[in-house]
């Protein structure tokens, strides 16, 4: 049976790449651009729009998908309003309002989409939630001292995804966290993501620890595990 994926954030180069790769794999693709991104015109994909700052908007997108499909197999979240690093450090004057906006967009935006699409995902076979993020969100490996908006807005999503994992894994959900390559050219930024998102990982039932799906990990474009 054809599988359905919703890509929330298909309007940037990484998201467009994701949509094309899912189409190649034969998925039915709903490509939602985020407010401010240029409308997605990806041949073969169903266009949607989501305002990252609005729960109503995410709910409307989910309702539009429900009109066409009874279930969704996979939800991919690709929210990044800080693609350009902020050069300020704590010694400069931080843009606090900008940082609140970045938090609402990068961390809360994906959670609003999960909230909206969860009922469709629960009815689906795939039950997988995938997020595109950045290794800059890792407290355990960043050596940076600038770009507070990017780092501080994205790290809390790691916490929220862990909590969702704890709550939803027992219901059969699986999760993927993917750090895109910050050095890659725009059209290659989402490269390897779909391979990572769609391939099952070992899921032996014998014991809790005998499965790679029973823990939440973050991996970069090379598949290398990034600490939290």
């Amino acid at each position: 049976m054809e599988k359905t994926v919703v890509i929330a954030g298909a309007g940037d180069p990484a998201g467009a790449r994701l949509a094309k790769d899912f189409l190649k794999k034969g998925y039915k693709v709903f490509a939602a651009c985020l407010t401010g991104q240029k409308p997605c015109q990806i041949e073969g994909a169903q266009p949607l729009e989501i305002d990252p700052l609005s729960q109503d908007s995410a709910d409307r997108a989910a309702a539009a998908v429900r009109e066409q499909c009874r279930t969704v197999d996979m939800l991919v979240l690709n929210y990044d309003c800080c693609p350009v690093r902020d050069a300020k450090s704590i010694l400069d004057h931080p843009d606090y309002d900008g940082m609140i906006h970045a938090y609402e967009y990068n961390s809360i935006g994906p959670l609003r989409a999960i909230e909206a699409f969860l009922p469709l995902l629960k009815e689906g076979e795939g039950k997988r939630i995938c997020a595109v993020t950045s290794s800059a969100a890792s407290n355990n490996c960043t050596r940076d001292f600038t770009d507070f908006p990017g780092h501080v807005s994205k790290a809390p999503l790691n916490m929220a995804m862990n909590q969702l994992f704890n709550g939803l894994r027992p219901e059969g959900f699986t999760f993927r966290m993917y750090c895109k390559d910050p050095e890659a050219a725009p059209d290659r930024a989402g490269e390897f993501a779909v391979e990572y998102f769609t391939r099952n990982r070992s899921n032996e039932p014998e014991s809790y620890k005998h499965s790679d799906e029973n823990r939440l990990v973050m991996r970069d474009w090379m598949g290398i595990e990034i600490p939290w």
Partner: protein
Amino acid sequence: MKNVVISGADRNIGLELAKQFLNRGWRVFAGRFLMELPLLDELKEKYPEALSIVPMDVSKEESVLAAAEQVAKEAGRVDMLIHNAAGFGDHSGQKGERTDYSTFAVPYNINALGAMRLVNGFLPLMKDSDIKRLCFVSSEAGVVSVAHRTEVSSYCMSKTALNMALRLMFNQLQPMGYTFRLYHPGWVRSARVEKPGDPVPTFEVDGKLMGKFWPWETAASAAEQFIEDRDWEDRLVLIDNEGAAWPF
């Protein structure tokens, strides 16, 4: 005399931290957020010289800058900065219910951005100190690698954000001679008093005593950790009230 600034000193851990430092002979600038609560005024009667009460709302930059100006006038130099103020948020998802994300930015603004406002505002007053210590009350609730809760929590997310902001600050300021303390107070009993006339502080929630430690117990552990020098200042480590280290 050494000078310490404490945010959120109105009650509970912050108030007890102020007492700890006053007992040790420090000059304390106690950040006050709850203007009607008299606990700091009562402490001021006991320490009229050593305690200064400073209006401070860490969610507003102009308030923190005004507080820094007051401290600059009264003392000129800050040796230790303690970010204790915290917002808890009234909403984490409940099982089976929809999560309301509309107020998630509130604890983020207080806990994470508040720490940035405090450091950014007071750092100019610390450059002549020979202590230069930045202390933060965080929580295991913000530790991603051992996250155990099963519902999304705005409080946990805000503490993760705080820990990340501290990481960035540490990477820059530690080589400049600043030292850091990152503290998990344990599961502390706290009393919700906000204004005069509120019932005598009760540490019970729905008739049950919640938490493992009293505020004065964790404040005593915190003060010791904050004051004591370490010969391993080149690491940022979250340490709890019993001395155990946590990952991030």
